[in-house]
């Protein structure tokens, strides 16, 4: 069973539907025991980093996620949930993340030419940097759907795929059992569903 962590950040309807579409049992929960019992964890999220990090801390779910990840349980962060996996973010101040991956979150405005729209909103191609169990069904150049104004930097040791938006932006990361997608796999058609499917197979054949 996959647990989708519900910590009051964003709407989990589509994510739950996409697991149903690939035939995987998924439960939405904020209960630490349910999260500990699950085989895999999805950390979703939209909105501001500081607010989301605070909600995770206040509910104690930050430690649950950190402990479960340390035990080797497959974990995937999506969009803001991916950003939370890193050490810190500079979105409206400086905020600590979960520190499961090395790197930090910076405004894309610092890296892309002026004139490009922010957020990056729409379909962009993945440039695969290194193979990973979660990209086993994904081909270089396939398109996924992004909505973001910040992106992970200094994360070379976990970078799996980038996307070109005036500069190479971090699209997909993974190290050991911890994975993250800046884009929305649940909104990226079949390409996205295959990434979720591959995540559900991690630890089985990886």
């Amino acid at each position, binding site marked *: 069973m996959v647990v989708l962590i519900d910590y009051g950040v964003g709407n989990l309807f589509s994510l739950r*539907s996409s697991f149903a579409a690939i035939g995987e049992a998924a439960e939405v929960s904020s209960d630490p025991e349910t999260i500990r019992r699950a085989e895999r964890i999805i950390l979703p999220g*939209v909105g501001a980093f500081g607010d989301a990090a605070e909600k995770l801390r206040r509910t104690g779910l930050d430690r649950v996620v950190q402990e479960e990840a340390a035990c080797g349980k497959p974990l995937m962060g999506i969009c803001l949930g991916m950003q939370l996996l890193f050490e810190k973010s500079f979105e409206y101040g400086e905020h600590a993340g979960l520190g499961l991956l090395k790197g930090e979150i910076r405004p894309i405005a610092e890296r892309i030419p002026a004139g490009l729209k922010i957020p*990056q909103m*729409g379909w962009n*191609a993945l440039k695969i940097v290194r193979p990973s169990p979660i990209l086993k069904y994904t081909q270089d150049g*396939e398109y996924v759907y992004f909505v973001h104004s910040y992106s992970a930097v200094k994360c070379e040791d976990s970078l799996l795929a980038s996307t070109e*938006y005036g500069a190479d932006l971090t699209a997909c990361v993974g190290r050991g059992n911890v994975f993250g997608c800046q884009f929305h796999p649940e909104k990226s058609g079949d390409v996205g569903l295959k990434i979720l499917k591959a995540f559900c197979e991690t630890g089985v054949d990886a």
Partner: protein
Amino acid sequence: MITKRIIPCLDVKNGRVVKGVNFLNLGDVASPVDLARFYSANGADELVFYDITASAEGRALFTDILTEAARSVFIPLTVGGGINTTDDFDRVLKCGADKVSVNSGAIRDPSLVGKAARLYGDQCVVLSVDVKRVDGVFRIFAKGGRENTGMEAIEWIRRCVGDGAGEVVVNSMDTDGVRQGFDLELLEQVCAAVKVPVIASGGAGKIEDFITLFQTLPGVDAGLAASIFHFCEVRIPELKEAMRRQGIPARIVQTESETGGKKHAEP
């Protein structure tokens, strides 16, 4: 490189797609859910569901349909029509909408865009405008284009984007239905006024109209249309191929089957 989006719009009334009949190759398809699945499999980058029902029963039916579509279509869904309060945002977001489009609701309550942006984020709030030239000035029309508000269009759009609208759908009443191409003059002014994504609507009659749109105005992010897609006068895979040939970035999806086995063509 980010692609230009192609967005079919489904006007839904009493649970059926308006103008959705006689769909080529699919027979008589007026089911919004079937049509949404078809478009998703054929390379639509996003879908707009527009609720043009007036009755409470129709509204409930619409949310049921939206829920069913969101369960089986995994591309972004924007919902519009009858969005007057943040409760309306809540209602459609819970049914699987990713973005919510406001038009007359924002005119009636100019604080709606700001309130919704604070609650759900800018990326969730789409400003939709119906614009018509009146004595040479672009004016905002309300109530489905029936009422001239007297507001100057570019000023209104700029204000709503300042309040937090994360995207603008610009529907030109002057070109809508004429099928002679998008309203490039209006769209150019909107692109110059705001930095958020701009979606062009109204006037597309053939593939070349989209090519002209994206080549003339690089600031336009997406093209939206309804009946030309419903009647297969423009097929999305052919449109995307034509865009690619002209050097316009487009996401191409192969369509051998409805489920599985699909691969994207190499860029």
